[in-house]
C-alpha cells in the first residue's frame, strides 16, 4: 500500500472516478493547465482533456451554477472553489438551488454535484485564505457536508461524494494537504457518508471533532496516556451533515466527559449542535459540563504569526483542555 499525502489521495479519488465514469468532470479556476493552485488537479487535464478538466472564468457563482445545471442534466461535476473563503458568491447557488432541487421538484429532479473547497488556516493566509465556512452551510437540509481528517478518508469520502445522488460539500483541509502522509490503498474503496469513525478507544474522556484539530487531539491523547494515564476516546465525525447522532451519543456515554474541537469559530458552529444532541439524549449520563475548544469569535484569522498562532488550535491547547476535563 503506497504512502501518500492527503492532497495526493484527493487527486487519486478524482482520477479514479473520472476513469470509472465519463460523466464525472472537474471545473474551477486554475484547475486545468496549472493543475490547481495547490496541485490538487495536477495531471488530470493531460489525462482527460480540456473539457473534462475545465479552466473556468473567475466567477464562483457560475462555477457552482454551471455545475448544478450539468448535474441536473445527468453529469457528475466536481466544482472546485479555490479557497472556501471565495465560496460565498456561490452561496445562493448552493443553498437556494443545489440544496432544494430534489425537494422543490418533489423528487423529479436531482442535483448530484460535488463542491470541493479547501478550509482552514495555519498557512499564513490571513483573513481570506484561512476560513472555515462550515457553519454557513451547516443546518441547510438537502446538503451533505464532509470534512476528512485523514488521507484514507479523503479519498474514500470524495469517491462517495461523487457517487452520491445529492449535493455534497467536500471541505478538504489545506494544512493537511502536505502534513498528513499515510498508507492509502490504490484500489477502489469508499468511506460512507454519514458515518462517524472512532479514531481511538478510551475510557476517561471523549473528544469529538473533524478535520485538522483531531490530529492535535490524537497527539495529545498519546501523551496524556503515557504521562498521566488518561485514556481518551476520540470520535471523528467525518460527515458533519447529516451528523451521525448514534455515534455521537454512544461516544459521549462511553466516558461521560465530552470535549468538542473545531477550528471554525465557536458560536453557532458544528460543536453547538453536537452539544445539543448530547444534551437532548444523554445529559444525565454526563459527569462534567460539555466543553468546546474552537476558533475564537473574531471575523477571521489574522496573518501576523503570533496572532495566527493565537487563533489556531494546537496539540498543546487541545491537551490542556483534555487534561482539565479529565480532572473535573
Amino acid at each position, binding site marked *: 500500500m503506497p504512502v501518500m499525502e492527503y492532497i495526493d489521495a484527493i487527486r487519486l479519488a478524482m482520477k479514479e472516478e473520472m476513469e470509472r465514469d465519463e460523466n464525472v468532470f472537474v471545473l474551477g479556476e486554475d484547475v486545468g493547465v496549472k493543475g490547481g493552485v495547490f496541485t490538487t488537479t495536477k495531471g488530470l487535464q493531460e489525462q482527460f482533456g480540456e473539457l473534462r478538466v475545465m479552466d473556468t*472564468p473567475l466567477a464562483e457563482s457560475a462555477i457552482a451554477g*454551471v455545475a448544478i*445545471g450539468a448535474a441536473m*442534466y445527468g*453529469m457528475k461535476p466536481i466544482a472546485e472553489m479555490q479557497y472556501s473563503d471565495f465560496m460565498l458568491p456561490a452561496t445562493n*447557488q448552493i443553498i437556494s438551488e443545489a440544496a432544494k432541487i430534489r425537494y*422543490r*421538484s*418533489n*423528487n423529479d429532479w436531482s442535483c448530484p454535484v460535488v463542491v470541493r473547497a479547501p478550509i482552514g488556516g495555519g498557512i499564513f493566509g490571513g483573513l481570506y485564505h484561512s476560513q472555515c465556512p462550515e457553519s454557513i452551510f451547516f443546518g441547510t437540509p438537502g446538503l451533505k457536508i464532509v470534512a476528512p481528517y485523514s488521507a484514507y478518508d479523503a479519498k474514500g469520502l470524495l469517491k462517495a461524494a461523487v457517487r452520491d445522488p445529492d449535493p455534497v460539500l467536500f471541505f478538504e483541509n489545506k494544512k493537511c494537504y502536505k502534513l498528513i502522509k499515510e498508507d492509502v490503498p490504490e484500489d477502489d474503496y469508499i468511506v460512507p457518508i454519514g458515518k462517524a469513525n472512532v479514531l481511538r478507544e478510551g475510557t476517561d474522556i471523549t473528544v469529538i471533532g473533524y478535520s485538522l484539530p483531531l490530529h492535535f487531539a490524537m497527539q495529545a491523547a498519546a501523551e496524556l496516556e503515557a504521562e498521566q494515564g488518561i485514556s481518551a476516546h476520540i470520535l471523528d465525525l467525518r460527515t458533519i451533515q447529516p451528523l451521525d447522532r448514534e455515534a455521537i451519543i454512544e461516544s459521549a456515554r462511553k466516558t461521560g466527559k465530552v470535549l468538542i474541537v473545531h477550528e471554525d469559530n465557536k458560536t453557532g458552529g458544528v460543536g453547538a449542535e453536537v452539544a445539543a444532541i448530547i444534551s437532548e439524549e444523554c445529559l444525565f449520563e454526563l459527569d462534567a459540563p460539555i466543553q468546546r475548544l474552537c476558533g475564537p469569535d473574531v471575523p477571521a484569522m489574522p496573518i501576523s504569526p503570533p496572532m495566527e498562532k493565537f487563533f489556531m488550535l494546537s496539540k498543546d491547547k487541545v491537551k490542556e483542555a483534555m487534561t482539565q476535563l479529565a480532572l473535573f
Partner: protein
Amino acid sequence: MNAKSSSTTTQPKHEQLGMSDAEVVDMYKYMLLARKFDERNMLLQRAGKINFHVSGIGQETAQVAAAFALDRERDYFLPYYRDYGFVLSVGMSLTELMLSAFAKADDPNSGGRQMPGHFGSKRLRIVTGSSPVTTQVPHAVGIALAAKMQKKDIVSFVTFGEGSSNQGDFHEGLNFAGVQKLPVIFMCENNQYAISVPTTKQLGGKVADRAQGYGFPGIRVDGNDALEVYRVVKEARERAVRGEGPTLIEAMMYRLSPHSTSDNDLAYRTKEEVDENWKKDGIPKMKAYLIDYGLWSEEQEEALLREISQQLKNAIEKGEQAPFPKPEDTLLHVYAGEGEV
C-alpha cells in the same frame, strides 16, 4: 392553401419562415389559451380559491413564439415565473397548472410545494426553478455544457426579466457560455418593470447590447410580433446547433397586469400608460394576421373561446377536487431514498 386577401401578393411571412398554416394557427391557439388561463387565475385568486397568481399577460406572444421555434421534443427549457405561455406550448397541461395553482399533491411541478409559476417537469425537460431571480441562467449554461460534452445537437433555452439582467448570475452565465461557445439561448422578456421599478431606473443601456461584451450576438426584437420572435429564436437555435455559440435575445413587451395578485400597479404607473400598451398587444395582431390570410375567422375564434372555457372549467374542477399532499409528506425528498438517484 386557403384563399388569401388580395392585398397580399408576397408569400406570407410564416411560410417564408418555414411554418405551415397549421403551425401558425396552433401558435395562435396557445397564445389565446395562455391569456385565458392567466385571466382565470386572477379571478380565482380574487375569489379566494387560490392563494396567489403571478401574471404573464402581455408576454404570451413572445413566449409561445419562442417555444414554437425550438425543438419541443428534445431541447431543455428554463422558463421564469411568468412563462405560462411557454410551458403550455411545450406540453404542460391546464390541469397540471391548476394542480399547481391549488397546491395539490399531484402538481407535477413541485407536488404542491412551490408557488405557482415555479415550473418543473423532467418529462417535458422543464428544469425546476426557484424564486431568487436569475439563478436559472448558469443552470442553462451547465445544461448546454453537458450537451456539448455529450455531443448532443440540442439547445437549452432560458428566460428572465430585464430586472434579472442586472444580477451577477446573468453576467457570469453569459460570459461562461461565450467563452465555451455553448448551445444556449438567453431570452430576456423585457416587460418594462421589475415589480414597480421601470427600465429607466434598472438599465443604463440596452440589455441586448450586453451580449457584445461576452462575444456573441445580442438581438432586440418586438416581443408583440410573434413571427419576428419565432424568426430570431429559430436562427439562434440554428447557430447554437452549428456550434457557433449562444445568442442573447431581448424581446420588448409590456407587463399589462400588475406584478402579482399582491400588487397595486397604479401606485407606480398610470392607467393611461397601461391602456396605451394594451393597443400593442400581440395576440389581436396575430389574430388579424391569420384572418388576413384566410387562416382564421371570427366563428373559429368564438368556437375556440368556448372550447378553452370548457377546458379551463374541467381543469379547475380537477385542481379543486384533487387531494392536498399529506401533511407529513413535508418530510419527504430532502435526500434521495434508498435506491433513488
